[in-house]
Structures are given as structure tokens and as C-alpha cells.
């Protein structure tokens, strides 16, 4: 029987992409959960764009510090080796290509890696925060999202209809149904969630899908 991955499972799958010694920036939502699945022995440093490299877990009640928050404005802690810096330094790291990997949510991603995740015209106004800088600057960009929106429409599309966050910048998409590489040929299906068929994945994708030679069911 097929089942959609939970948010935790999407995060767990993305954690496999994180390599030893990486500096990683995780967005809000599912991306934040990725931290829970990165083994400590990988020595990964989490970057928070408000000015911290070396973000630790959430604090206990006794350790809460209003001056120590992450980019989602949540209270956090630091790990050994952490550093604080200004927003200009933070985005020098990001824009300058020093951040190895970023994981973000999205409303739409198109077949050539353009991403829309910050604005629905005449509706929701929140702003792009650091997302445009992250997709423009990080070495590797992963999108974590549901395959379908709440109306059942595919969020993987031929061309984004929503205002873009970045053009041709996403490398990998992990959804509750599948893992896609983005190549010059468009979406390439690498893995599918247990129980789904390739046809079902294709039907849930509003753009051509190439199936990788070594495509397989996801393993955890």
C-alpha cells in the first residue's frame, strides 16, 4: 500500500544529502526538522541568517535567552564552536557561496529549477526574508514540500505562475511522494515513496518526468 511521507520522513530523507563538515541553512517548516536527523558525528554547523553559525537545539526553560533566537524568531542555543556576526556578514557567507547547502519550502518549483515561495499576488504579503539570497548563493539548494497543494494541484510545474524567488536555482526536490533531481532535461525521478508507482508520480507532476536509470523505492 502506498502512503505519503510524513513531514518527519521528508526531513529524514533530506538529511541523507548532508555531508560531513557541511555548513547548512535550514528554512522554516519541514526544513527545520532536518536538523533532528543529522548525526552529530558529521560535525555539521547550522547557519541561521540572523547572525549565527553553530545553532544548537531549543533551550530548556532555564536556558531561554531573548538575545538568542534563530531566523524563525524561535529561542535556541549554540553548540561548541559557534560564532555570532552581523546580518551583512551572514549574507556575505550566503551570497559568497560559503554555505554548502540550504533547504527551503516552496509553493511551486518548475522543471528548470525556478522556485516560488514568497508571494501570492493580492493575497498573502509576508516578504521573502532571506530566501532570495539563499537560493542565489548557497552551493546546493533542496526544496522540501508536499507534491500537491491543498487543492490537489501539483506544485511541480512546467513554469511557475507565482512570483519567483529565484531563477534556475533548485537542485533537488523531496516531496511526500518522490525525490527529483533537476537537470537540463527537467525533472528526473530518482526515488519514490514506498508503495507508489512511477505512473502515479508522473500523474502528480504537472511537467514531463524522466525516470532515472537507477530510480528506486525510497529507503530509510
Amino acid at each position, binding site marked *: 500500500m502506498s502512503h505519503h511521507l510524513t513531514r518527519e520522513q521528508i526531513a529524514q530523507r533530506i538529511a541523507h544529502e548532508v555531508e560531513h563538515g557541511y555548513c547548512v541553512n535550514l528554512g522554516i517548516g519541514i526544513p527545520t526538522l532536518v536538523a533532528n536527523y543529522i548525526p552529530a558525528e558529521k560535525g555539521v554547523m547550522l547557519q541561521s541568517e540572523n547572525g*549565527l553559525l553553530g545553532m544548537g537545539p531549543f533551550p530548556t526553560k532555564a536556558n*531561554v*535567552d531573548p538575545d538568542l533566537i534563530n531566523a524563525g524568531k*524561535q529561542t535556541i542555543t549554540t553548540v561548541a564552536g559557534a560564532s555570532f556576526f552581523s546580518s551583512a556578514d551572514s549574507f556575505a557567507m550566503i*551570497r559568497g557561496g560559503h554555505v554548502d547547502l540550504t533547504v527551503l519550502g516552496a509553493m511551486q518549483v518548475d522543471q528548470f529549477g525556478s522556485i516560488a515561495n514568497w508571494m501570492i499576488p493580492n493575497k498573502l504579503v509576508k516578504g521573502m526574508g532571506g530566501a*532570495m*539570497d539563499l537560493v*542565489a548563493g548557497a552551493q546546493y539548494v533542496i526544496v522540501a514540500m508536499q507534491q500537491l497543494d491543498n487543492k490537489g494541484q501539483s506544485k511541480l510545474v512546467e513554469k511557475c505562475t507565482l512570483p519567483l524567488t529565484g531563477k534556475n536555482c533548485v537542485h533537488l526536490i523531496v516531496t511526500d511522494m518522490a525525490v527529483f533531481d533537476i537537470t537540463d532535461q527537467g525533472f528526473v525521478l530518482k526515488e519514490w515513496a514506498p508503495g507508489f508507482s512511477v505512473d502515479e508520480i508522473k500523474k502528480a507532476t504537472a511537467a514531463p518526468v524522466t525516470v532515472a536509470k537507477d530510480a528506486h523505492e525510497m529507503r530509510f
Partner: protein
Amino acid sequence: MNKVCKNAFEALKGVQDGMTLLFGGFGLCGIPENSIMALRELGVKNLTCVSNNAGVDDFGLGLLLHTRQIKKMISSYVGENQTFEKQFLSGELEVDLTPQGTLAEKLRAGGAGIPAFYTPTGVGTKVAEGKEIKVFDGREYVLERAIKGDFAFVKAWRGDKFGNLIFRKAARNFNPMVATAGKITVAEVEELVEVGTLDPDQIHTPGIYIQRIFKGTNYQNRIENLTLTEG
């Protein structure tokens, strides 16, 4: 020159309607609480405010939105403020949403005598519309203008009477760049010490950027999103 003011009101002398004001802080962390409260009392209007966020409904710059003192906001993310969304959607409030790194660099450049710079951020998006695009080494970049303010407001942990500042943890954020980009920069500090007390090796913002400084009071240091480890 004496930079020390006795309170926020004295430090605000000269702030007028229609000015461009810059604010340090990220969310509610490291915001110049005392200066914002005093601006509300002062009642100056038609302000252009440059700040990464717009506070929440009842704190931070949200206070100045409530009193309709702000004409235009330049920010990267305003998601936590319903007053903001309402005034924006009704057309009452002008908003220039700017990518966070571009905003930080605009302020840095403004304070550093750089009138504009090219960045890869926002190329191919609404942000780059109407702006010059130039190709360097095969990649497109968009030209962004620097920002300077009539007044700039920052909050630091410790400061001395010359205006040397030390920030604490993630409360540094936009404060160092904002400090450099104001014609008059007002620093409010939790602790104001004599010159010579702070270790020169530990200064984050040298006093040359600061024209006025005062010891703030009644800091709320409000937490926007208290999140604890379970168990």
C-alpha cells in the same frame, strides 16, 4: 563633544515628519525599544522606516504602524504583523519588500560610501524589475542602490561615552550596518560605561559612527516565539 543624552527624547532632537529612519533588530531581538516608544510619543508622521521586520501588533515598529506614523516600510519580512498586512492591502502603507541580504548590504554600502552594488540575489524576480542587469563572468547580477537615513537607531548591550558598542549574541543582527548609515545615529544601551572601560579588541561598532548615546530603561526583551526542548 558630548554624545551622552539623558534619555530617548533628548536623543531624538531634530527628528521631523517625512524623514527616513533606520532601525536595527531582527524580529523583536535587538530592537531600539526606547527610541521607538519615544518616536510614538513624539508623534512624527509620514516616516519612511527601514527595518528588517515591522515588529508585532503591539510592540516594536508595530507601535508606530498603529498610530499611522509610517508612510513607507522597507523590510524583508513582515509576516508577524496583522496591522501591517491590513494597511498594505488597503493601499494605506507603501512597502518595499527587499531581500534580507540585499537590505543588509544596502545599509552597509550606505554607511561605507558605496552608492550602489551588483548582487545575484533577485535576478529574474520582481525585485529586479526596472533595475540594471549586468553580466559578470557569465552570470547575471542586478544593480541595487545603497540606503542612508536621516536618523538611525540601534540597540547595544554595552556602550561607552564615545559610542563604542558591544552587542550581545544574536541581538547584533542589523545593528552594526544601521549604525553606519545614519546622518545622526542614536545608540541606546543596557549598560553605559566610561571611556576606557571596554576592551578595544572586543568593540563591534567603533564610536565614530555614533552621534548620540543613552542608557535605555525598562527593557522588555520580548520573545516572539518561545520554543523549548521537549521533556
